[in-house]
Structure formats: structure tokens, C-alpha cells
């Protein structure tokens, strides 16, 4: 019981921190890092849940999340490179030309 309470609490805190990072940081590198934190928070929640019920499913899903995170980072870094190339800065607010 203790495990699941603290585990989920930790996952929640991590997720909230990640979200906060996404919302407040303007540097795209930090935005990507915060996204990673959010993904890992979700993964942690799966691991904790899997451990609580003694099921391997949680760990399987975590592996999926890792793979997806790797893909996401590669796309994100490519975007980052393009962004820097275009604007000579990493500020996401600078790239707001596509407003409606």
C-alpha cells in the first residue's frame, strides 16, 4: 500500500513538474527535456501499478513508452535543429508566425 501511494505521488509530482517546465520554459531544449520528464512520470506510474498487482504488463508498457520517447526525441531534436537554423535562436515564442 505504501509502495503504491508514494509511487503514484512521485509520478504525479514528476508529471506536474514536467508540465510546468513545458508551460514556463521558452527554450525548446528545456521544453523537450520537460516532455521527457512527463513521459517518464507516466512510465513510473505503469511500473508501480505493475509491481502492485504483480503483472508484467506495466513493464511491457514502459518499454513501449521508452521506444516512443526515443522516436519523439529524434523528431523533436530534428525540429530543434530546423528551428535554430531558421531563427538563430531556441526561443519557441519567436516561432509564432503561424498564428491564425
Amino acid at each position: 500500500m505504501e509502495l503504491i501511494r508514494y509511487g503514484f505521488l512521485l509520478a504525479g509530482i514528476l508529471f506536474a513538474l514536467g508540465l510546468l517546465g513545458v508551460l514556463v520554459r521558452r527554450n525548446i531544449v528545456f521544453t523537450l527535456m520537460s516532455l521527457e520528464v512527463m513521459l517518464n512520470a507516466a512510465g513510473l506510474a505503469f511500473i508501480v501499478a505493475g509491481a502492485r498487482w504483480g503483472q508484467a504488463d506495466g513493464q511491457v508498457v514502459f518499454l513501449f513508452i521508452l521506444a516512443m520517447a526515443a522516436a519523439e526525441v529524434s523528431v523533436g531534436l530534428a525540429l530543434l535543429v530546423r528551428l535554430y537554423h531558421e531563427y538563430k535562436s531556441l526561443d519557441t515564442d519567436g516561432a509564432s508566425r503561424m498564428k491564425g
Partner: protein
Amino acid sequence: MFDLLWLVPAIPFAGALLLATLGSRMPRKAVAAVGVCTIAASAIVSILIAVAFLAAPPPGGAYTQVLWTWIDVGSFNPRIAFYLDALSLVMMVVVTFVSFLIHLYSAEFMEGDEGYSRFFAYMNLFVASMVTLLLADNLLLLYLGWEGVGLCSYLLIGFWYQDPVNGRAARKAFIVTRAGDTAMAIGLFLIYHSLGTLGIQDLMQRAIAQWGVGSSYAIAAAALLLGGAVGKSAQLPLQTWLPDAMAGPTPTSALIHAATMVTAGVYLIARTHVLFELAPPVQLAVAIVGAATLLLAGCSALTQWDIKRVLAYSTISQIGYMFLALGVGAWSAAIFHFMTHAFFKALLFLSAGIIIEALHHEHNIFHMGGLRRQLPVAFWTFLAGGCALAGLPLITAGYYSKDLILWHAWNSPAGSVVLWAAGVVGVVLTSLYTFRVIFLVFFGDVRTPVSKRPGLPIRIPVWILAILSIIGGYAGPPLLTFLKTALPAALESRAGALTETGSSAVTALAFLTGFGLAWLFFLSKPARATAVAANPVGSVLHRFWFADWGFDWLYDHLFVQPVLWIARVNRGDFVDAFYTGLSRLIEWTWRILRLTENGQLRWYAAGIAVGSVVFVAIVSFL
């Protein structure tokens, strides 16, 4: 021989198609040849059919040629079929023959006009529509011809469309007759709804079987058909379009007045006479409309200065006689008067056209004068037509037909002294206004010099028509006998104070009165007419009659102005306000929502986060 019946409408229609598609590329001579020869062919075919009909009448006195089924929906399957009996035969022969003469005349009359081929295309279509109307076996096909005639009259009245006045006159004719046509369409719906057929012969038989005399269905159906007839034949209260229809070229006026269009209403009533016999109040209304119209139009004709408008009012008045005859059940007399009227009215318009052309498009009879020696062709033919119109006793055709109508107005069970007296006063008026025109135009001093003399294609038709206007009356007795196979004979009841000879004598006397008055006022001392028109009562009446008894004023204030007012008020289209409002609302919300699309990545992320929190909250707490 009867197999060729379909050719009578088909040939003019083919001519119209040819001229409409290739006419502008054809040389003028070819256009005239196509335009005139198609109608000539049509007239020849109809005369051949008439000869065959007289030699060996088809069984039952009627021949039906079914071409194909027009529409086939359930029990509603009107055919394209032509029905030939004595009535439609007489109408067809007169219409095609008179139309042929008018076309021949137009070939020279319209020579210098830009729209030569357009003119003949419309004229051919006009004749084709009219013949379709006459020969139609069912009311739907009749309605097709009816509307075709309306369309062609619109096109021809507005033929010189560059002048907005002509376009206005054309629209007026179209809209006013449309009012009558709407009534007629409703009548057709009623007849089909109640009797289950639109075949004219079928529906008349079923009407006798299903509807009693004076039943409300019969009255409604007959009244609605009368509405259509009144509009097309320019009778009270829808007569206002015809005087304005003079905006078209003169041969068009001749065609509209003599052969096609205005007599369609008379034909419709004669064709569906059974319905009117089943509805005595409506039949009485027909007689009253006719009597009132002939008087009103006669008075208006007295005051007009435009020669064509005088003739237009005289047409309204003469159609009034036909309606009077139909109203008292003298069906054949109406058709007889139609025939003589077709001859002399076509003649009058064609000779008026000669005068107008010769005087540089001068329409005002007060600017004409002394044309007796200048234009003898116009004088003699106009005199023949005018005498026939006024009813010169014993000599002219118009006298015989009008006299017959007056006798029936007196003698028939539906007739009365009032109707007869109205007819007699009408004869005085007719004679007065006709000779007013003749005296003013052909006698007195020369006021406008003659610039152009008519050629052969103009002279031949007017002479033929002049001869027919004189001798046409002798065709009366055989014609009436012939028509008995299609139309019931007029009932004779009242052996009153007046004999047939007495009635004829009164008619002759009425003619002489009008002639004498015209002589007094317009020939011996023209100052008298001016004096009458100048005194207070005279001048008020003159203005009132000149403006057609104020009908135009009334309709203008009753219908035209309110519609224009509504159009002005509704310029912003308040009916559409709901949809305009909806689109405004959407545009407005779009402006607000657009603010969220600011391009800021972090705002989007926040949006997603808040949205998912709200969504999860909704799912878990509700």
C-alpha cells in the same frame, strides 16, 4: 387527308426553329421565304383538310389524331393529340389564312428592320402556338399553346426592345394576362381533381354526369376558366394590357387582334361550353362582362388620338360582342363574329400600318388628313374594314355577325333587354369612333405629306382582306349550319315585342345614328367636337375615357404601387434576417476564437493540459 393534321402546327414551328437558329446567317430573301412559306403551307394544308372534312365528314363529326403520350404518371396521362371538329376547323382555317396574309404583308413592311429574322421566328412561333391551342385534344396541351401565345405576344410587343417603353408594355401584357392564366391553371387543377381527366370531350361528358346544373364545382370551374379567358381576350377587368400592346410592330398588332391571342379566350369558352351551360351564373357573368366591356371600350375608343389605340379599343369592344354572344348561349354566332372580325380587324391594322409607314411613323390622327387621294389603297381598304367594323347594313360582313349576336341577346332565354340595349348602344359607339377616324384621316386638308407608297406584298393581302370583309357575311348561314355539329344551337324563347327583322332594323338605325353623329362632329363642322370636348362635363369625360376609365390608375395604386413599396421597404431583405444574423454570429465567434490561435507553443500546451484536466474531471465526477 386528315393524317396531315399534325403538319398545321408543325410546319410553322419548324419554320420558327429554323429562323431562330440559322435566321441571322440567312439572307433576307430567304428569311422572308421561310417565314411566309411555312405559314402558306400551313394554310394550304388546313384548307385541304377543310375540303376533305366538308366532302366526307369523319364519323361523329370529329377526328382525333393521337401523336404520342406526353406524360405518363399513374392515372395522369395527357396525350399530344389533335382534335378536329367543326369548331376547331373553322378557327384553324381562319387563323392560318389570316396569318398567312399578315406574314406576306410583313415581308415588305418589316424589310428595313434589323431584327428581320427574329421577327419572323416569333411570328411563326406565334401561329404554331395558336394552332396548337385550337387543335388541342386536352386542356393541358391547350394550356401549352395558351402560354406559348402569351410568350410570343410578350416577345413581339417588346420587339423594339431598345426603347424601355416597349419593354414596359410587353411586361404589362405578360403580367396582366398571367393573372388570368393563374386562374385558369387553378381551374385545370380543379377539373382534374374532380373529374380525373383533362381530355376536353371526356371532361365535358363526365361533367354532365357528375356535376348537376348550378353545382358549386361547375360554377367554380367555369368561373376559373372565365378568368383565363378574360385575361387573354382583354375583357373587363383585365383589358388594360391590350391598348399598350400597340408598342409592337403593326403586323404584330394585326396578328394579336385578328388571328391569334385575343380570340383564344372566346375559343376556350366555346370549346368548354358544356361547363358554362352547367353554371348559369357564370354564363350570365360572361354576358355581363361582354356587354360592359363593349360599352367601356367603345367610349374609350372615342377619345383616343393614336390610330392604333382606337383600333385596340375597338378590338376589346368587338371581343365584348363575342363574349355577349357566348354569355347568351349563341356559341355559333360568337364564332361567326370571330371570323368576320378576324378579316376586318386584320385589314384595319394592315391599312393603318400603310398609313403610319407612309407618314413617317405618325400615329396621331389629328396630324393626318386628306389621305383619300394620297393613299387610295389605304383609303378604300380602311373604308371597307371600317364599314365592316361599324356594321354597314346589308353590305358588310360585320353587320351580319353583329346583328345575329344582338338578335340572340334579345331572343335567347339568357338574354335580356339590357344586354340587347348595351349591344345596340355599342353599335352607335362603334360607328361613331370608326367614322371619326375615317373622316379625320382621309378627309379634310392634307396635314402630313405622304413619303412612301406600298408595294405588291402589302397591297395583295389588304385587298384580299377587304374583299373578305365585305363578302364574309354571306358565309354566315352555311357556317352556322356547319358549326351545329360541334356546338349546340342557340335557344330561342322570347317571342317578345321585337322580331328578328325589327332587331336588324334597330341595328341598322344605330349604325346610321353613329355615322350621322360622326358626320356632324368630324366632317361637316369639326369645331363642334372641340366644343363638346371643351365644356366642363365633356372634358372630364374625355379625360376619363382617354385614360380607359381610370383602370390603369386604379391598378397602379392598387397593385403596382404597393408591390413597389414593399420592394422598397424590403430592400434589406428582412425575410433573410435570420440567416444573415446567423452568419454574423458565426463570424463574431470566429473573431473571438481566432485570438487563441496565437502561434505560441506554450499556450497550446496549456490548452491541451487544461482541456484534458477538465475532460477527466467531467468523466470522473459526472
